[in-house]
């Protein structure tokens, strides 16, 4: 059953905005150490908001690319395990163009969620 609005992303944004704009300044005055922790928490909520919004499509794309790259179907975790094994053994390396395209696309989707400002 669909939940009423706000959506998960909308609710996370509302919580993060409240904590950032109202709770953090008050904490900074009362207890700077907790003010710092609160910034970490607010930043984590922003990650979750992006993950709720962007994560499912990113996972689906990663799964599809891995299925093509490895030529078989399995769960996302199983495919990544197989890829990790091939990379540790050296069966594949950075000279593999399709591999590098897959990793770049995967990491681009991951950083867009974890820290879109990273350069």
């Amino acid at each position, binding site marked *: 059953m669909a939940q009423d609005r706000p959506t998960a992303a909308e609710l996370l944004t509302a919580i993060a905005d409240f904590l950032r704009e109202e709770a953090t300044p008050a904490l900074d005055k009362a207890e700077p*150490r907790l003010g710092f*922790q609160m910034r*970490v*928490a607010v*930043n*984590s909520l922003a*990650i979750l908001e992006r993950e709720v919004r962007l994560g499912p499509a990113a996972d689906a794309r990663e799964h599809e690319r891995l299925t093509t790259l490895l030529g078989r179907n399995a769960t996302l*975790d199983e495919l*990544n*395990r197989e*890829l*990790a094994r091939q*990379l*540790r053994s*050296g069966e594949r*390396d*950075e000279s593999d163009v399709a*591999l*590098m395209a897959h*990793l*770049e696309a*995967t*990491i681009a989707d*991951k*950083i867009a969620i*974890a*820290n879109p400002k*990273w*350069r």
Partner: protein
Amino acid sequence: MTVHMPSETENVARVLAAATGRHFGAPAVIERLSRQSGGASRQTWSFDALIRGERHALILRRDPPTRGKTDRERAVAIDRATEFRVLQAAHAAGVKSPEPLFELTEEDALGEAYVMRRIGGIAIARKLLRDAPYETARGRIASQLGEILARIHATDPATLPALPRREAADHIAELRRSLDALGQPQPVFELALTWLDRRKPAPLDRPVLVHGDYRTGNYLVDEAGVTTILDWELAHLGDPVEDLGWLCVKSWRFGAIDKPAGGFGSREELWSAYERAGGGKVDPVRAHWWEVFGTAHWGIICLNQAWKHLSGSIRSMEHASIGRRAVETEVDLLQLLKQGA
């Protein structure tokens, strides 16, 4: 009747008064004792000791009786007694480092602990990179770090305590063990470790004292520049270029991405200051290897920090959230590997 249970701070103050008095041979009054940032397992406390009317600015480094240390920390970090001896050797060799004063004893019951002099300056990268009072310092930091590092690496090995020797191959094996322990497949880190394994530099005939965590955040700076090098717990014997590479990992630039040397200068500035101060000639290919290694190393440390929370050894939102920073190094690793070398 109410019974007063002494707080941890009161207990530390009482022990410090006795131990500091013992060291200076006169009664000591402890003032302004406060716990600094740092984990539950490796604590740093700041305090003043008043002795014969003189105020001494001091620091207590302390590991409480084993709590919250992961196997990996036990495997890579040296204990406090060894750290104390490394500091003694480095300080005696003229390295800008805190002067170690005395160790606490088992009867003091604070765990492994020692006291050193407190040195002025700040470590906070964001302030150092942007605030007006550090304008002059900013232009000096990269070359000062090169000079100090040359001194660290020149420390006479005969003056050092027994330290683990860690070569490129040992580091790679250690990181692969970490990945295996975490249990989540990590294709980009596997790719990077295989790249590193195939190109790893040969072990040195004469390994030197490597600081092991030489980066922005682990040294103090005042208006005139670097005052002291902190955080010696990852000291080991190995390749001096390891420290040069680690300092240039992008994660310590805090946005100043065009200044690889800790956010304050170019690699060439750092290397030439290092060479002028008596460090060996820096091979750019070797330095690049250690920079790639450092980037993978930091990423896997991020995963490990999250694992401390997930495994229950430390319950900490801060540790948990660091896990999501690992991907920053994956971005950097793919860029570095594309650059080749």
